[in-house]
């Protein structure tokens, strides 16, 4: 069963077409990379997936819930990490997580347990009482990922979560989320413009100029070339 299904999605800003008939689906428990150069339409797609924008045409289903007709059920099954940080810098890690937990109906002991569990998973437990402002970029990202896990979502959406991080932090975050996917059977959609964040066993959707150029496993799309070469060739051909 597909955990995330996008069908024939269209979106435009005035006369500028941002998404032109985008469609793909991800099976339960799979890590899917959404690869595309800057301006491909990745962030617009994320805004539509999270309900911040509504598409005039096309459909989105999260864990079987249609975004248009059952937005609350769809959002309740979704964890999101946005490209720009969405943490309150002057609040502590734990306060940020408690706020989010409550927005998803979790409070008291249950919320506290989930917060400890999620922070522990991301190796952030000892920083729970630190103010976010004091954390480095990598730790802020981990906090956001931990936060997105609190309500145990079926689908996790991450919009270029490694932007602005140094190489070791980038690798650590990428590995963390791959491990999460393997351990918990959570479905992941990971937007990026960097091919080295994609493993050959991952699902891969290549988005360019608002269109899906390819949707398959990364090793099938790459063929016998390195993924980077295949990606550049595809993007270059239509560029």
């Amino acid at each position, binding site marked *: 069963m597909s955990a995330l299904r996008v069908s024939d999605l269209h979106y435009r800003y005035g006369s500028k077409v941002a998404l032109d008939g985008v469609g793909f689906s991800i099976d339960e428990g799979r890590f899917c990379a959404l690869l595309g150069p800057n301006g491909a339409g990745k962030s617009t797609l994320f805004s539509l997936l999270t309900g911040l924008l509504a598409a005039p045409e096309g459909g989105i289903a999260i864990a079987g819930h249609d975004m248009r007709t059952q937005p609350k059920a769809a959002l309740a099954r979704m964890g999101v990490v946005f490209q720009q940080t969405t943490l309150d810098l002057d609040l502590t890690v734990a306060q940020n997580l408690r*706020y989010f937990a*409550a927005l998803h109906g979790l409070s008291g002991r249950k919320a506290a347990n989930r917060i400890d569990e999620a922070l522990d998973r991301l190796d952030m437990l000892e920083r729970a009482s630190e103010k976010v402002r004091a954390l480095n970029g990598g730790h802020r990202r981990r906090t956001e990922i931990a936060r997105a896990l609190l309500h145990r979502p079926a689908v996790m959406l991450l919009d270029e979560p490694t932007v602005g991080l140094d190489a070791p932090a980038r690798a650590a975050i990428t590995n963390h989320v791959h491990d999460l996917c393997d351990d918990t059977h959570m479905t992941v959609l990971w937007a990026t413009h960097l091919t080295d964040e994609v493993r050959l066993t991952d699902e891969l959707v290549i988005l360019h100029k608002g269109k899906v150029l390819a949707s398959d496993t990364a090793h099938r799309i790459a063929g016998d070339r390195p993924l980077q070469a295949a990606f550049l060739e595809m993007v270059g051909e239509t560029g």
Partner: protein
Amino acid sequence: MIYFTALIAIIQREALRYIGQRERFIAALVRPLVWLLVFAAGFRAALGLSITPPYLTYITYEIYIIPGLCGMILLFNGMQSSLSLVYDREMGSMKVLLTAPLPRWWLLFCKLFAGAIISILQCYTFLLIAGIYGIRMPTIGYVTAFPALLVGGLMLGALGLALSSFVKQLENFAGVMNFVIFPMFFLSSALYPLWKMAEAGRLLHDICAVNPFTQAVELIRFALYAQFNLPALGWSLLATAAFLALAIWGYDPARGLIRKKG
């Protein structure tokens, strides 16, 4: 239950952020105090006030100006929390709020309610300082003012929320502050009674009378004397509903609120 949990969390977050910004608290308090202790003291001789409801006797100008200054706190705070919304939106924490699995109108209402509660705390701090200074209201008035302050706070917060949904950039918002706050405040009964305005001109009086801020101030003025002003309440609630409807429409995802490049 999740509705209530979210409401409490949103209020807590606003309070935590507020405590963290001590200079904002002090600035919000200094403004009306300067008006009260400097402007009103100087103006007292220049402005004669006749006995009009809810006052039963001649009053000093300091007494007259108190409800207007409470309104000022609500007005500045309503606009400031909208400023924080625009800022939040840019920083992204508005995205976190709007992707919660709750109806958008409820989330926006919670945000509004939380802002109003913070404003009311400030109003009471202001009333306390005014009381220490010797400007006191009937004791019961401090209790009956609460619902009036809440309505006023919600109305002005809703106005700010509506504005924030239409203002794309922070720079533009500063302009809106000037175009909204100052006309609303000066074209109201906050500083002078409406009959004084009528002496200056009928049109000016009429503009002041339909200004929702005037209605909120009058609601607070009567409530501080444990009196109920139905027209003021009606107007204030009507304006709250209109501003809130505008804000919910402004934050409708189909309108493409959070426009981002692809």
